[in-house]
Each structure stands twice: as C-alpha cells, then as structure tokens.
C-alpha cells in the first residue's frame, strides 16, 4: 500500500471549491497532511495454531535456486493520498484519492490488467454529525460531491467526539477501508477468472472470496501483530535467509481464516530482526507443507530485482513497487 501526502490534484482543488460553496466558512489550509494511519492497538504477540507439524521451528525452503521460476502472473496493490485541506470551526476537512490496480507480467514486463481497469476514487471524508447542513443535502440527494461520513456510530453505538484528532483518525480509517475495498474488488475479479497466482500486497483474510481462492497470495510486510507466542518468537526472529516458519492458521475476528507462515527473504545480519521478514497468507489447503514451500520459492524469487529506492525494499517485491509507481502516476 502506498500512502502519500501532497497537495490536492486539479480534481481535488475543484472539489474543494465546490465544497466551499456549500460551506462558506471553511478555512483552507496548506500543508495539513495526515500521516498514514497507524492502528491505535499496540504491537502484540498473538499465537496462532500451527498446522504443519507440532510446533514452531525453522524450515529451510527446499529446492530454491537461481533457476527457480515464479508462477506469479500479476501483482495487486492499492494506494491512498490523504490531506487535510481545510477545517470548519475545528472540524477537519479530509480529502483523499484512493486507488488500486493489478499489473500483469508479460514477457517479464508489467502492464495493466486489461480485464479490469485500475480503480480510482476521490472523495471527502467528513463527519456529517458535525456538519448538519451538508448532511441534509447529502440525505436529499442534492449533493453532487462524493462525500463519506466519518461520524457514524461504531459497533458499540458510540459516536466519535468532535476532537479533531479523533475525526482525523476516523477519516483515515475510512480511507483505509475504501482502499481495501478497491483492492478486494480487483482481487475478486482476478480470482473469478482463475488466472495465474496473484501477488497481493497485504493480507487476504479481509474478503472471504479472496481468502478462499487458491490464486490469491497475500504477502504482509508489517508485523504489528506477530502470530507467535513468547517462546516461539526467537525462532521466527531467528529465521535465516531461505527459511520459513511452519504453516499456522490465522483466523482474526470478523475476518476469514487463512493459512500463514513467516518467511525470511533477505539476510538480516546487521539489521533489525524484522528486516527481510514477510508473512504469507494463502487459502487453507490440505497440503500445507507443499503449498508453503512452493509459494515461498515464488516469493523469494520475486525479491529480484531490488525495489530500491523504496525504503521497504527488504520486504517488497519488484512487482508491488511497479504497482505503486503506476498508481502514483494515475492518481
């Protein structure tokens, strides 16, 4: 996922002008950027049941060599560009451009998937609860602007407070959800055609169809939650290049269950323990070992060429970098 903060594009500026016609007392601000959303939950260890063997251990991925071929035929990623473009009496006006695309590999080069064009959405993320006149217009269908309400009650029936930081966090969460939604839309479309395996940047468990599709393979780069217990942590962090953990089952709340494992794709000597460590998510399978070995070989293969100068190059495949560059160009 690509997150950038920059000045609104021409479409954003036009939307802002329209919004200001409806909310004349909006103060436009320059440089009100939002950092990429970080979950409020603290980093945690959450053990997951191992389904390959009896316990956590390092497994050398077999039969990997330079000649190994990768079967990934396409790469999926999403991007978001978020900015606080103004405020109205302390209420932040958040504008975001969210996009997702599948890039297909043909003769070693990437082109945009022809069956489903890239998805790009541009909209304001505003708390209607604190902007009632705008909420009325939207409710009556008179509002032509694309606006998402960020002040709905949560599952506990709690409305967000008017604290600007809370509202910004709500907006960022909504942007994240929208991006995820776009990504899964494309992933579903890909899987429905049962084409070659799709490399997805991030997890697959958020969408049941994708999570259960054998052609969707998620590669997670961030490790805010590590799916090991205290005792096994050192095993995962001690994986060396070309080693993986046993397959375990991840079944988060309100998400689909998937098989997962950790894989060291770069030698972490001299780096922090999470350097070059990815977690792979695939649909549940009756042959987890074979599946994990095969996909691990593909993932390791995708580490070349390097994704530099991206700062996450230790975990990022070049296909995902290409997606991000593409999305940066079109959104």
């Amino acid at each position, binding site marked *: 996922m690509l997150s950038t903060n920059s000045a609104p594009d021409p479409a954003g500026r036009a939307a802002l002008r329209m919004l200001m016609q409806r909310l004349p007392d909006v103060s436009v601000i320059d440089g009100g950027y939002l950092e990429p959303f970080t979950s409020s939950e603290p980093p945690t260890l959450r053990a997951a049941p191992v389904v390959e063997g009896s316990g956590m251990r390092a497994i050398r991925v077999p039969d990997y060599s330079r000649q190994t071929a990768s079967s990934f035929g396409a790469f999926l990623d999403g991007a978001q560009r978020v900015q606080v473009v103004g405020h109205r009496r302390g209420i932040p006006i958040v504008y975001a451009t969210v996009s997702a695309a599948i890039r297909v590999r043909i003769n070693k080069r990437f082109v945009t998937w022809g069956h489903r064009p890239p998805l790009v959405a541009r909209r304001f993320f505003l708390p209607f609860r604190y902007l009632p006149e705008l909420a009325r217009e939207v409710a009556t269908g008179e509002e032509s602007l694309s606006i998402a309400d960020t002040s709905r009650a949560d599952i506990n029936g709690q409305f967000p407070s008017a604290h600007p930081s809370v509202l910004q966090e709500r907006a960022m969460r909504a942007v994240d959800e929208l991006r995820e939604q776009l990504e899964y839309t494309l992933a579903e479309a890909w899987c429905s055609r049962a084409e070659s395996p799709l490399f997805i940047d991030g997890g697959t468990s958020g969408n049941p169809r994708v999570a259960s599709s054998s052609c969707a393979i998620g590669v997670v780069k961030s490790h805010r939650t590590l799916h090991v217990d205290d005792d096994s942590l050192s095993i995962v962090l001690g994986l060396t290049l070309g080693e993986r953990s046993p397959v375990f089952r991840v079944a988060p709340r309100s998400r689909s269950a998937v098989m997962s494992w950790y894989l060291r794709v770069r030698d972490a000597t001299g780096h922090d323990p999470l350097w070059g460590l990815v977690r792979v998510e695939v649909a549940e399978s009756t042959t987890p070992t074979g599946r994990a070995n095969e996909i691990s070989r593909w993932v390791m*293969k995708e580490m*070349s*060429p390097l994704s530099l100068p991206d700062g996450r190059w230790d975990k990022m495949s070049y296909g995902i970098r290409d997606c991000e560059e593409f999305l940066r160009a079109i959104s």
Partner: protein
Amino acid sequence: MSEALGRVVATERKPNTPHEFHFWTAIDSPVGIGTIVRVDGAQPIDGQIPHIYGIVVEGFSYTDLQSPMHDVLGHDGLPTTAGYAPSERAEIRLYTAAVLRQIPEEPLQPVPMGQVFLADEADVQVALRMDSYLREGANTGIPVGVYRAGGTDAVIYLDADFLLGPEAAHLNITGVSGLATKTSAVEWLLSSLFTHFPEEKGSIAAVAFNVKGPDLCYLDQPGKVEESDDVLYEKLRVEPKPFDHVEYFAPYTAKGLTLNTFRNNEELLDKVTPLTWGLREVLQFAEVLLNKDDVDAKADALIDFIKENVIDKEFSDPVLTKKHRVQSFSDLDAWFRDVLQGMEKRDGESWRTHHVATIRKVRNRLSNISTRCAGLVTDSGEVSDLPFGSFSDRTVYVVDVANLEEDAQDLIFARIVSKLREHLERRDLGVKHLVVFVDELNKYAPGDGADTYVRKMLLDIAERGRYLGLVLFSAQQFRSQVHRRVVGNSGTALFGRMDADELSTPGYAVLSPATRTKLATLEKGQLMIRHPHFTQPIFVRFPRPSVMQGREGAERYPQASEISMDAAVLRTLRQLDPTITLSWVQETTALYNDEEIVRARNATLLARPDNVKAYFTAQFRKIVPAQTPARPMAASIKSAPENDPYGF
C-alpha cells in the same frame, strides 16, 4: 490512420519549445535517431488542430534504478544471474525531436502535448517543405534517396532550383575514404539529375575531375546492382544503367606513347581523347604553375610582354638574328636563346627594360613547364581539348588527372574551369547548366595555407557560379579543413560516414551527440542531407551506382603498360582505321625519330581524317632516296672536219 507510437511529454526541467519537444514510446517502437514523426495537438489553434513535424535527434533510455549499485546488489554481483530475475525493471524510451515544421506556422508556439505518429510519405513531404517544389506543373524535385523508418519509405527530393541555382547552388560531400560514399553518391546523384532535371530548365552536363584512383573511369560500363538497390531505383524512378554519354580526357605519359589514365586499356580507348595543350594555352595560366617567388613584378612584366608581343606574332628586333614566330615551347626557347645571345654580343645588361637576369629567370621557369607537365604540354603546340562550345546535354566529361603531378593537375583544373566559365558567360558552352565535380577539396581549397590560383577559382565558382549555371559538386574527407567560403556557399551538403576526430570539430557542434554518433556509424549507401528547404538534417539511403566501380574496372580492364613506339602508334591509329597493321606502321615510321612519329600520330588523331594512312604518312617530312649521280659522258674526241685541209 496509423496508430500513435508515442506521447509528447514535458516537465519543468525539460520543457518543450517551438523548436524542440520530447516524447516517449513503447520499448519496441520503430523510432530511432533520424526518424520523422508527426504530433497531433489536442487543442485547436484558430480553429485548426496543430500538426507538428519533427525529427528525432536524441534518445534516452533509463529504468527506475536509482544507482547502478542497486542492480549489483540485486544480483549478488553476478551478471549471469540477472537473466533469472522474473521481472524486468520498468524502462523508458524517451526521445527528443527537433521541429521541422509546424502547421499552422503562425502563431509559433511551443509544441503542445499530444499523440505522436510515425510520419508517412505525405507527412515527410510536408515536414521537409518538399510540397512547395513537388507541385504538379512546377516540379523541380531531384530524388536524392529514400528515407526509411518503421515501414515508411519516402523519397527525399532536392529542389533543383536550390541545387543548381539560381536560388542557391552547389553541393558538398563529406565522408571518410574507402567506403564508396563520396564518389558513389556523386555518381548516383548525377544519374538522378540527368533523369529528373526538368526539361524546361534547359540542358545540363557535368565535368568530373578524376583526381585519384580509377573510380570515375568506368562510368559508361554497367556495374553490379543488388536486388535491394533495384527496389530503390524503382522507388526513385531512375533507370539502373550506366551513363549513356561519357567522354574521357587524359594527357599522355611523359614519354608520350600512351595516355596517362587508368582507362588506357585498348578496349576502352575509343572514348578517351588526349588532352594536350600548347604554349598559348599554358601561358594564359602561367601563374598557376609559377609561385609568387618565381613571378615578381619584373618577371610578370616580361611574361605579359611575351604574351602580348611575341606569342603567335611575327617578332623582329635588332638584337635578334632573325624574325621569330613563337607558337610552341620549342619556338619560345629558340626566341629566348636568340635574345640572350644578342644581348651578350652587344654586351648589354637589359633589353627593352628587361634585365638579363629576369629574362634568364623567366626563360628557366617557362621552359621548365613543358618538363613539369610533360604529356600535357606539347613542345609542338598541338592542342587537343574538351569540346568547349559543343558540350552535349546529359553528358559527363571526365578529365582524368589522377596520375599527374600536382602542377599539371592544377594547370588542368584552372584552365578547364576558366574556359567553362568564359563559355558560360557567353552562353556558348553548348549546355545551360554545368556541374563541376572536384574531389579532395582539402587539397584544392584548404582552409589555411597559401592562397593558390586554384583555391581562388573554387571560391569564385562557389560565390558566383550559380549566376552562370556553373555548379560545384565538391567532396572531401575533412570538411573542417576546407575553406569556409567554399563549403559555406554549398546550399546542399551530404555527409557519409564521418571520422570521429572530424566530428569533434566545432562545425559539427550544431548536431546532437546522437546524430554525431549515427554519422560516425553510417553504413555504405547512407547519407545525411542538409538542404535549404530542410530545417534539420535528414538521413537517407541511396542505391549503389549502376556503373562499374573503380576496383572492378581496374581488374577487368587492366591499365596498359608502357609499350613500344610502333605499338603505341598502332593502338592509336587502329581506332581510326582497323585495317592498319603493325608492319605498316613499322614500315612507315622506320626513317623517322620518335618526336616526329608522335607529332604525326597526334596530328592524325586530332584530324580524324577519312584516309588515315595517307594523312599519317603525309605528316612526315619528305626524305628523298639517295641516288647515285649519273656518270658524265666522256667527251668524244672530235673528228676532223671532212673539209679540214689540215686534217689527217
């Protein structure tokens, strides 16, 4: 309409201008340096969608790689493993094009964003402004080659008005030696010119000076033409055949027996005319052969005196022992001898204000000319020359000076060009337009060095020739070393493969590095063209000339070696009368010396009489056969008269 192959791009760092724009293409697009493209603007200007035509002058290729080190790291320092990577890096082909033409031409604006198309044949005509001179009824186009790119084959035309005048004129060719570029290009261009030069513009001929090798010696002989060349000939609408009308001129060797040309093989001699000049012809151009140290004001005055008062006139003077009529170098030498002896007798130091030392110096220098230019300059004064006044349309006159000394080359060049100029001024050369081809311009019109007569003549042609119909086609290896006014006045310039050193000279700084690189690697048969109508140089292919190449000709028709006097005479006279035999020649010439025989042969060749044998024989002085004097009759003893009374 063809598909777009690129898109115009511009950034703040690399903006487009009215004369240059940038575009990117797919990696496998057929665009390269020299490709002509068309940009279709998106926004109309004054109700008209702008079309911009450009030629690619620079190309860039790069990937998203930030540092080469990243690639090294990515492949563990092993280049062989790079091939196993599942993906290639994102890569761009970015081109810079120089604007050839914008339509509409006003207002002249920076090139807008838009789609880029490969120019088709019609686009090429518009882009190069050829549409202005290829109009029906006013077509002055001379095909010079075919522009090729991405499946487009477009004939490139030069404007005859800008190639042969009067608008602009002259053509200069630059290229390294040995790649058959310069000579081949001229041979091809003359073929095209003779085929396509508009009839209404009058007659045209060419005089080519063959200054080295046998390259121009077989223009009337068919050469090998490849299939690919046939295609070009058809496209360019020129028949692949040798020149129909070619005449060769060459002086004799120093011995005077054979012609001093690569084309002196007996089978080819019928089209070779000896080039011989006498005193009168040479003295007009004495300053070509005499440098400034030789000819000071005093010597110049004496030469003028001789030209005015001595040559071809009855000249008598008290100091001379007899009347002189000087018509040849030998006559002149006799005159000098008589003058100097007369002065000695009178013990005089000067004669008619000319000091004896000056007279001796001029005698020495002038007498020396016939030695230095032996074979060309005759002692006897016989003249065999180009057909000034009766030049024929679409004919090439080749003057072979390749084997001559530098002095003789200069003399030939100076005199022939001067004569051509005189006749063109009087409009009585026989043709209206004349192309003069001179190779090795580095030597004849160098940018530095002495201001020679030949260089002055070349400058004169370059600067004023077009008004007369005298057009210079010149060639050299190093354009930078040729006098700037000569190349500068050449409206059209052709460039074959160039030497890297030459390309590094300031004159080529106007070309982009990529264009210079292309110039340094051009194949045979490729040229870069600059022409007044073209705002940027254009690359074309031209067909191999359909005439025998020098090397092949030299192998097929080996040069004749020096032969005996009898054989030389036989060879010459047989062209006029095939019944002549060696025994007849030997019998006829047995009593005469070489000088007389050569003179008789030359006179016969010049006159081309119906009865060759009789004419040749008549050239010799009469030798009366020795006769034994008749014995005087012995006086008879007188008998006594019958009526003599004293008789017994």
